[in-house]
């Protein structure tokens, strides 16, 4: 049985607002399935004495003091914006499909 369904891939594409064609859905579902099945094999060797690992380094509490650092100049900040108006990032209205 496939580790991920075509419908799940379509749902994920929607959450990321990616337009995916029917052919692409078939392709990605197949590719993601291979990846997930491979990763699932890791689970086969997991035992009670092996805790789930989220970080590869044995560190905790890496914190910084509350001290102000220089920011980026605004022209550099907005240089990466798709469009600019009133010194702000200008983007299409979101949520239209949910109204």
């Amino acid at each position, binding site marked *: 049985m496939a580790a991920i369904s075509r419908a799940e891939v379509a749902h994920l594409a929607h959450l990321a607002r990616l337009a995916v064609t029917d052919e692409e859905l078939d392709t990605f579902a197949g590719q993601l399935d291979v990846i997930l099945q491979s990763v699932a094999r890791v689970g086969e060797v997991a035992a009670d004495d092996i805790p789930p690992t989220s970080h590869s380094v044995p560190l905790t509490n890496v914190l910084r003091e509350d001290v102000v650092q220089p920011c980026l100049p605004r022209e550099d900040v907005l240089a990466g914006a798709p469009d600019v108006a*009133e010194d702000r990032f200008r983007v299409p209205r979101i949520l239209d499909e949910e109204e």
Partner: protein
Amino acid sequence: MSASTAAAARYEPVIGLEVHVELGTRTKMFCGCPTVFGAEPNTQVCPVCLGLPGSLPVANKAAIEATIRIGLALNCQIASWCRFARKNYFYPDMPKNFQISQYDEPLCTDGWLDIDVDGEVVRVGIERVHLEEDTGKTLHVGGATGRIHGATESLVDYNRAGIPLVEIVTKPVPGTGALAPVVARAYVAQLRELVRSLGVSDVRMEQGSMRCDVNTSLHRPDEPWGTRTETKNVNSLRSVERAVRAEMARQARVLAAGGTVTQETRHFHEDTGDTTSGRSKETATDYRYFPEPDLVPLAPDPQWVQTLRAGLPEPPRTRHRQLQVHWGLSDLDMQAIVNAGAVELIEATVAAGATPDAARKWWLQELSRQANEAGVELTALEVSPVSVAELQRLVDDGKLTDKLARTVLAGVVAGEGTPVEVMAARGLEVVSDEAALGAAVDAAIAANPEVAQRIRDGKVAAAGVLVGAVLRSTGGQADAKAVRELVLARLC
């Protein structure tokens, strides 16, 4: 009977509150950008809070400490080990396309806050206190009103993106019946006092540094809890109470008509006091939370937590009780002050020379009425504690009657100046000039010979007619008691 009270007669409400508090740290949660309110758009951002490739977040120690202190003040357990989580969603208020938050491992869990409501103590359970980053500010343009409805595009300012934000979530609060709206308000008011006492946030609801979501459900007394709605945009104490009232009334109408309540996000509208259906909420699985790989786990040392606990200030409730004794107020009067968010206002007014009772009276009666009419919070009125104390001094000195003082106060609120200035500009000072007042009394006696005769004959109660005449002829600027004495002195 209000609609929410009628709803509580048939259904049991269960409420829950999610309160977001923006911390007052100098820098953001995961980078060194400053957090000054009202700065020019996009001037307090850097590669980390913009989510530029290659940038890495590092947690702010002051924000972690502030969150632990809030948790300790709310009687929570502090996690010995926890992680941040990535909350993925597609919306331009976070440039990274995800928000760093906490999911199944909050920093603080399982506490409580005792609040005073209507002469009773209600213990509100705290489910969790966790730390996340605030989002950017989105301005919707192209529509008529700046709201998202009808807008064609959005303009985003990321100055706020990344400011540390603490989320405080209550356990469901059942059993408060018709008092549910008042309990909700009292909880937020008293939580605000608590957070303020810790000095970790300015908790200004009108500036958005404290924001509320209100969960409400109704169920029949013998049935399981009902489906809840989550009302957003509830950003004043007054609105918290109104939003719960509105949802109780609305859900009762739906249930009474045989319908079912839909689990959804709703928006509260300040102008109408109603809620409307909002966007459908993505489910938790749609957020695809996973442990934040760019931040190592937090493991607060018990010694560190102990030090923070030892440094907690006296709880506001204790301080309020001391103030209450000091001020000589009843339990109900003091609770009304706390739940109106007026403790500091009264304190400052008393410090400026007013008696506690006079300060309470002006703020909780006349000024609360004016704030209500204007649809704003008490603290948003353009009147200072010093002005209120000055006004009371004018009353005490006999320069203003209570009635004139209310008129002067309205002038102060309207921005016409200090009480003394408004009194002078509008010519509202009590006519205390004995000669002028005596002439007005003589004129009233001359104009009402029959009444005067009755008073001479011993019908002292008839003096009211002459007092009224004098008050009218002086434009309400004479003190009724003084006029009455003058009338009686002349006729008896």
